[in-house]
């Protein structure tokens, strides 16, 4: 009796997890529930239905594995012509593709349909740090590349690691492999290590440090967006300090590579409609995202450019050959 009950409960739990209705639009979140990709699928999926862009509720499937690689290979190998399938993506997706971290898969196997929000990159120091501006830090690194260790939430060679290196390259410094970087478990962990004095600076996303800005324990040297971020107008951009670096963690979607141009355009238009909706603007504000809308072929071209840049930088620091 008891075992039967347990079985029923367990089976029910699994069904609610993986159940997929035929013909409805499906959004694959290549991670477990709760993360950024899951948020992308759930929010965009809900808004697509609420504003009438799709006729039935979007089904969200969580397919965690290999940092998104499992979902990527599933889409390429099994769902390549499915026009009712969208997949959540972000900067991590393009970085990993550039670094061949998806087991040989390449970016041209899918089509990047659009980004409709972004989390701007930041360079942060503890409040008691001697560095008052980005230039202070850049000069210190030029004098001794090992004197400033960075902590970030991504693995070595990942998106967070790239940000300070891009800044140093923009400053004309080439010996970037000397700069120490440790990848820890997420941005909050990285900021903790920096406040604790184990690393001299933190590289991450704006949303990861909002609480620490408010508590006055950190100083943001630069935000890596094109414009200053609404709500944080006193934080200067890297660009205005003379370092031409824009690094934002975009949130968007890719679709299977085998769909037609017309089908691709349908998704681009739908995504544009989501970007313009009030619901999405609310969701962005609530989650610390800054507006960043690029859809359709524009976005594909932009992603291709970012990937080429990442490949170049990754080769330079030896992450790929």
């Amino acid at each position, binding site marked *: 009796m008891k*075992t039967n009950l347990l079985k029923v409960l367990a089976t029910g*739990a699994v069904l609610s997890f993986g159940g997929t209705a035929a013909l409805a639009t499906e959004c694959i979140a290549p991670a477990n529930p709760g993360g950024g990709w899951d948020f992308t699928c759930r929010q965009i999926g809900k808004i697509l239905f609420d504003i009438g862009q799709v006729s039935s509720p979007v089904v969200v499937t969580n397919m965690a594995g290999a940092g998104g690689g499992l979902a990527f290979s599933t889409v390429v190998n099994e769902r390549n012509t499915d026009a009712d399938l969208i997949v959540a993506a972000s900067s991590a997706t393009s970085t990993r593709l550039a670094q061949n*971290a998806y087991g040989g898969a390449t970016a041209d196997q899918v089509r990047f349909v659009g980004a409709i929000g972004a989390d701007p990159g930041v360079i942060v120091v503890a409040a008691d740090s001697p560095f008052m501006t980005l230039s202070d830090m850049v000069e210190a690194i030029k004098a001794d590349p090992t004197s400033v260790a960075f902590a970030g939430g991504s693995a*070595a060679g990942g998106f967070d*690691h790239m940000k300070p290196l891009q800044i140093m390259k923009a400053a004309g410094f080439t010996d970037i492999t000397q700069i120490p970087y440790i990848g820890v478990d997420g941005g909050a962990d990285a900021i903790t290590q920096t406040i*604790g004095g184990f690393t001299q600076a933190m590289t991450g996303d704006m949303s990861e440090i909002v609480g620490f800005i408010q508590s006055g324990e950190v100083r943001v040297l630069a935000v890596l967006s094109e414009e200053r971020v609404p709500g944080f107008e006193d934080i200067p951009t890297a660009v205005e300090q003379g370092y031409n670096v824009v690094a934002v963690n975009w949130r968007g979607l890719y679709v299977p590579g085998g769909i037609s141009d017309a089908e691709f355009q349908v998704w681009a238009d739908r995504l544009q409609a989501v970007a313009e909706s009030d619901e999405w603007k609310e969701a962005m504000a609530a989650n610390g995202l800054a507006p960043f809308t690029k859809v359709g072929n524009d976005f594909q071209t932009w992603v291709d450019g970012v990937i080429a840049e990442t490949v170049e930088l990754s080769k330079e620091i030896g992450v790929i050959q």
Partner: protein
Amino acid sequence: MDLLANLALGFEIALSPWTLFLAVIGCLLGTVIGALPGLGPSNGVAILIPITFTLGLDATAALVLLTSVYYGAMYGGRISSILLNIPGDEPAMMTTLDGYPMARAGRAGDALVISGVASFVGAFLATVLLALVAPYLARLAYKFGPAEYFALYMLAFMTLGGIGSNNQAKALLASCIGLGIAMIGLDNTAGGVPRFTGGNLHLYDGIDFLVAIVGLFAVSEVFFFIESHGKGSAIGVKLESVTIPWRELWVTRWTMLRSSVVGFVAGVLPGAGASLGSFLTYMMEKTIAGPSGKFGTGVARGVAAPEAGNNAAAGGALVPMLTLGVPGSGTTAVLLAVLMTLNITPGPTLFTDRPEVVWGLIASLFIANFVLLALNVPMVRLFVKILSVPPALLLPGVTMISFVGIYSLTGSYFDLVLMIGFGVMGYVFRKLDIPTVPIILGILLGNQMEDNLRRAMILSRGDWTYLLSSAISIGLWIAAILGFLAPFFLRHMLKRPVAPDEANED
């Protein structure tokens, strides 16, 4: 009294018929999820996230439901540990060591009651500490860098020798195998180099410890069962009547209190978590008791220590999550994600910005705790009934649940094959009397230990003395070395005076 005012605020928010109803549902669900092999607290909470969205629960209601499931799963994990020798989730692993021998001796009811009360004591004290000192304790995380974490993991591995088996070399072998398995997957420190994956994408994330636990414990149990036709299994053991063992509860009071404090501190340190909490408390109590404590043969203290420890750690893990936004365990990582989707950003300002959330959460933890105690002790009679199910039905049922649970992790058959592989390995190892607990600990902690060592080496530019550069790390290293040596000395000291039959005990 700020604290009382805050608590009053919390209970005002959390104490409504609707939230109480959610707490009861959450506790029941959590207990079942925790008891099911292959489904632990983090999956339990993750499974319920979509449900909270669908129901459109507000922040407080969602938190009450999810924390009830969290605490419920921490309680529930012990049930299958004790009754079936199969840990329901990873922190309950240590409970098998003494809980299952108690069950085989016909004292399943006692073990369940003692561990239930220990869970309550651990979780209750942790919640009190959370309410009292959370904002101050957040500073503790600032004191722990890579060198300190590495020393902490060394402490765990150095004390492994005395576990489960009488042969230290076998325990060492098992932990090395565990560490080796932990190396499978992407190497994140060096920039995502795949190691030992054979190009298989399924192995890029490494091997999930739940797959290993279910394989090594549940599947190997099935093999044993088939081999012995059910003899030598706890299943079918005659039960004595279930009474509350007041005397043993009283005897274990200091064990529970000590373990709660140690477990809480282990939980507060991000990255250590409940498994380390239950492990350290078990080994601490074992060392304090010495060989005459007969740990591993089915003693009450061996059940009380890990349960108080892991439940206290579950509460402790909420401290860095709420005050820093750093999840201290897999489950708090999921809870953190839930908070973010509810538009609550944990961090240093959470306690001042959103007191209603924090104190509502703390109040709901207290509620969940009392609900769980009220559910668990009277339900012991029901739980032990599981043992009266004919083994021919029970074991296939447990196996099926394990398969479903593991399948739900990633939805791929690959993990199922891997799990059976671990089952075969567990069977062979148990035949050779090699303990399996160190293997799991190696898988659980190996990556963190390696990552922290390598981070320390990056920061120090390869200078080994960096590992001993702070008072905290030196203290942890001393504790680790003492923990390694203590069993030898204790055995020698106690061997001389005691009678030969006692000395032969281990």
